[in-house]
C-alpha cells in the first residue's frame, strides 16, 4: 500500500548534500545522502511480540532499504524495541532459505529439490499416512480421524494462514493439533 510520505520522513531543513564539503563521507558508496530516495513504502505489523506495533518498510528495486516504526500507529507511535528495530535483518539475511531443502532417510546432508517435487512427495506421504492409520469408528461412534499425522506451530502465521491450517488439518482428520499457545 503506497503511503503518503510523512513529515517525520522528510529531510530536515538543511540540505544533505551540503553537509560535507569534502565529499566522501560516512556514506561513501551510497551515492546520495538520501537513503530513502525512490523507495516505495508499505505498512506492516511487527512479527515479534503481541503488542502489534506498526512499522513502515521502504523498498527499492525489490529490496528492503529501511524499516522503522510507524508514527501514525496509535499503540507504538513510531517507537520500536530492539527486536522490532532489527526487522530489516529478517528480510536482508544470508541465512534465509531460498530453496526447498530435502533430507533423505539416514542422510547426512540437505539436498535441493524443486517445489513440484516436494509437493508431490509430501502429498504422497500424507496420503499414505492417512490411509494407513485412518479410524472411522470407535465403538458405535463415527470418529473419522487420522492419528498418523500431527501438526504443530502457527503462532507466527497470519490469521488467514492459521484458519487454512486449522481447516486443512481437520479435513485430513488430524487431532494431534497443537501450537505455541500451549507451551
Amino acid at each position, binding site marked *: 500500500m503506497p503511503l503518503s510520505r510523512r513529515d517525520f520522513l522528510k529531510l530536515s531543513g538543511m540540505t544533505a548534500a551540503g553537509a560535507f564539503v569534502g565529499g566522501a563521507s560516512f556514506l561513501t558508496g551510497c551515492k546520495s545522502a538520501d537513503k530513502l530516495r525512490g523507495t516505495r513504502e508499505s505498512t506492516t505489523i511487527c512479527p515479534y511480540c503481541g503488542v502489534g506495533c506498526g512499522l513502515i518498510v521502504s523498498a527499492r528495486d525489490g529490496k528492503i532499504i529501511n524499516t522503522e516504526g510507524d508514527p501514525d500507529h496509535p499503540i507504538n507511535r513510531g*517507537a520500536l524495541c530492539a527486536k522490532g528495530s532489527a526487522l530489516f535483518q529478517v528480510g536482508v539475511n544470508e541465512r534465509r532459505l531460498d530453496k526447498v531443502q530435502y533430507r533423505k532417510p539416514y542422510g547426512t546432508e540437505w539436498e535441493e529439490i524443486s517445489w513440484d517435487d516436494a509437493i508431490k512427495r509430501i502429498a504422497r506421504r500424507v496420503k499414505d499416512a492417512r490411509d494407513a492409520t485412518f479410524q472411522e469408528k470407535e465403538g458405535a461412534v463415527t470418529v473419522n480421524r487420522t492419528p498418523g499425522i500431527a501438526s504443530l506451530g502457527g503462532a507466527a502465521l497470519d490469521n488467514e494462514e492459521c484458519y487454512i491450517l486449522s481447516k486443512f488439518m481437520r479435513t485430513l482428520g488430524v487431532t494431534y493439533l497443537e501450537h505455541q499457545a500451549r507451551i
Partner: protein
Amino acid sequence: MSGKAFLVDTTKCSGCRACQVSCKQWNNLPGEKTTFFGGPEYTNPAELSAITFNHVKFFPVDRSNPEKPVWTIMHKKCYHCEEANCMRVCPQHAISRVEGWVVIDQSLCIGCGACVNECVYNVPHILDEDVKRYGAEGIIKKDKSYKCHACMENPREVPLCARHCPTGALTYGERAALVKRGLARVKEISAEYPHANLYGLEEFGGLRTLTVLKDRPEKYGLPVGEKAKAIDLAKAEAIRDTYAFLSIFTFGLPSLKRVAYRISKSMVG
C-alpha cells in the same frame, strides 16, 4: 547554544536497546562479535566502538536501600561538546561542526588517533579492519575514526535512535527546550533521588547529549569540573605541530601514527 540536542532520561530507560540497534539499521553498521556480556549486567559490547555509535550501559544494581533497589541503565552516544577536544586536536581538521553537531569526515581522517586519545568520554574509535556494511553496498574503512554523527549524513526530523525509544528515555529536539524539560524532570525526581542532576549544561562548553542522572555524574563515570574542560587551544595547536613533525617517521602506518600522537602529547604535556 542554539540548535538541536538529545535528552537522555535514565529514570525512564527500561534498557530495551532499540537505540543501539536502530542506529545500526539506519547506518547499515554490522553487529559486533561478542561471546558474553562485555560490561556490567547486560552491557554489550563493553563500550562504544567504530561500528557501535549508540550504546546502552547497565550499571550494577544499587541495593543500599534494600526496600528500593536502583538499577540505572544509561544510553550513551557522542556528547557533541561545544568545545570538543577531538575537533581541537585533529591534525587534519577532519572533524568539524555541522548544524552544531561534531562530525568526522572520514575522507580526511588519517587514523592518527588524536581524537580517540583526547575524548574523555571514549567516544570516537578507529576501525581496525575493513567491515562490509550490512545490507548495503560498500564498506566502512579500516584506520578511520568513527562515531555518532547525529544522522547529519542522512538527516531526518528525528534520528531513528530517538524516534524508536518506546519510553521517552531518549528524545530529540531544540536544546533550549530539552534543557528546560531536563531540569523540570530533575526537580520532579529530586525527592526520590536527592542528588539527581542534568548533566551536560557546563561540561566542555555545553553538551548536545544531555543526561538526566539519578545520582552524581562521577557515579556513572562522567567527568565534571576541571576534568570536563576542553584542552587549551594553544596546547592543542602545539600538539598538532609536534605531531606534524613526528608523523614524518610513521611511514603511513596507523599504529605508528597513534604512537607518534601519544609521544607528541606527552612532549607538549
